[in-house]
């Protein structure tokens, strides 16, 4: 399974929350990412998320999309890592940043 953000969601990703503007991370997570992750988990498939080809990403969009899977959707980091493969040739450093957001969200969830 594959999601290409630029074509399957938006060429210009926006803010964190739906109320903040269009193409938000919250919308991407709820409408695109989370359903596909659940599908991948159920079918033992891999989900490739290609981040290239967009105008660029803000921290909050990425944090809400990927950290939100743990914080808002109740998944855990191990589950996500078992199915998710991120691609970013344009900005390879984004991969570490996203990994950090998910780790922080997991740590926060574990403390509660």
């Amino acid at each position: 399974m594959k999601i290409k953000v630029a074509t399957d969601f938006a060429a210009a990703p926006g803010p964190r929350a739906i109320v903040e503007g269009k193409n938000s991370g919250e919308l991407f997570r709820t409408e695109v990412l989370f359903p596909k992750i659940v599908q991948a988990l159920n079918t033992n498939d891999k989900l490739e998320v290609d981040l290239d080809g967009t105008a660029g990403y803000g921290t909050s969009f990425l944090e809400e999309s990927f950290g939100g899977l743990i914080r808002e959707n109740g998944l855990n980091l191990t589950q996500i890592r078992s199915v998710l493969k991120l691609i970013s040739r344009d900005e390879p450093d984004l991969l570490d940043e996203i990994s950090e957001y998910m780790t922080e969200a997991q740590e926060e969830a574990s403390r509660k």
Partner: protein
Amino acid sequence: MNCRNLTFFVLAILASYGLLLVTLVLFLGIFDPAFTLGNLIQAASTLGAGLLVAKYVQKENQIQFNQKQLLVSQLQVMSEKLIEFHGFKSGGPLVEIAAALKQLAMRAGAISAAADELGFNASIKNRISFTEELSELRRIATQTESLKKMEAVVDECPAVVRDGILVLASERASQLESHLEKMQIKVFKAQIAVNAS
């Protein structure tokens, strides 16, 4: 004086020595009955070899100089993009800010890749790496509170977005300006380091 310059210096001396030898041989040859063609060939060979190697080293120096110039000019572009980013010091359309961040990240990536390909040493590569600074810039320039925190402390948010327009509170704006300044200084120092290498 670095190793390459020292080599060039030694070879220049050798070439000068060869030239002197040819002159002496020709001069003495007029008066010395023992002067042979072999003496002349030997002297000319020394001169020729010295000149050839000196020419080669000079060419290598020119290539290295051009490579440094290339890297310095790319760093200059990065510096100009950082100056442009100051336009977002109080916020702006989030999509435009994210696009500017992407351009900076891609430029930084291209600079690092060029340094790798051109064989610059680890110290230079370290000086021209902006991974941490760009990650921090992205955070300062675009991070807003999570959905739950947003509901709780909306009046104290350091950054808010309305209709896709980001507004930074004065504290965050100062933080952004200070970080941009820090990055520009790093770019400047990197340019100096590349030139001095």
